[in-house]
């Protein structure tokens, strides 16, 4: 339990509606951990959740937009990783020349 934050506490702290957190879960954008009465957020996912809050409240992006952006950002991240790998591979061959 020490790595879990009650969803209520998160909403109070960040001044966001509880329904927003629920909607994010419905869209499959976050995963909430349930006990009998309470929903929790994994502390390791806090950074991602904060990002979703910023996209919605600071940039006025609706949930459909957030969903699309999340997929695209994942692709960007994957491609950035691939670029690093390819650069490292390339340098391997450049050293040979």
């Amino acid at each position: 339990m020490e790595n879990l934050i009650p969803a209520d506490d998160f909403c109070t702290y960040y001044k966001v509606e509880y329904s927003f957190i629920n909607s994010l879960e419905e869209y499959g954008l976050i995963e909430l951990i349930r006990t009998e009465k309470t929903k929790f957020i994994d502390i390791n996912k806090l950074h991602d959740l904060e990002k979703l809050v910023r996209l919605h409240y600071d940039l006025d992006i609706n949930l459909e937009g957030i969903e699309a952006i999340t997929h695209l950002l994942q692709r960007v991240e994957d491609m950035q990783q691939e670029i690093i790998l390819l650069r490292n591979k390339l340098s391997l061959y450049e050293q040979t020349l």
Partner: protein
Amino acid sequence: MEYVDYYKTLGVNKTASAEDIKNAYRKLARKHHPDLNPNDKEANKKFQQINEANEVLSDPANRKKYDEHGKDWKHADEINKQRQQQRHYSNQGAQGFAGGEGDDAFSDFFASMFGGGDRGGRGRQAKYRGQDYNAELHLNLSEAYKTHQQTLDVNGKKIRITIPAGVENGQVIKLNGHGAPGTNGGPNGDLFITFAINNDTRFKRLKNDLYANADLDLYTAVLGGEITIDTLSGKVKLKVKPETQNDVKIKLKGKGFPVYKKEGEFGDLFITYSIKMPVNLTDRQKELFTELSKS
């Protein structure tokens, strides 16, 4: 301090309404927000400029001061007070406003106000997480081979970090809470460190595997034998099979690079043999080679 045209930054004219400014800010923020431009320093910088402009122009009182005093808008109250004093006591030779704070005060002011990079139009005193910092750490490949500690200077603050063996060139690690302080009691941002690894060894690295060449004399290649090669973990004796061909590649299991955060696990080392032909042969040696060629 350089004058920054906040209207130009937001792409609006001086007669823009509050709604125009809000819309322009939102539009630009959606384009340059760090969350939407991961690892893009230019976008991050641009976003800070947009934020700075919005913070001034979206507040009617600040906007009025900025319109009247330009770059000195922050000292508007002091300037006005000074002007009033000049009007009343001009015959007493009152001096003009001297500035008081250096140019840096301007940046510091905004650094503290805009630390978040993630505050925005919610219009309430919410707690905001501090801005994430990005830094690049240069390491030699031989250093990345071992877990070691380094002290980093992040905005004047010394941070001692442990770098696990096996970090890769371009790899990013996150240090929680070492970014900019949060606002209104919000949590600190994080520090992201990107490793730039310089190869100071004769080995070539690809992920956890290492590659190197080893010279082999003709006689050992033909007859077989034993050679000693250097690895990153020390010298290793290698048995060479008879009739070994040029460019043959052999694998030394577990003699490669450490696997990141997997203690005791290593990649492999691939050695490519490069057979060296004998030179400056004596007549007798040439005779023997001739005999050999006819046998």
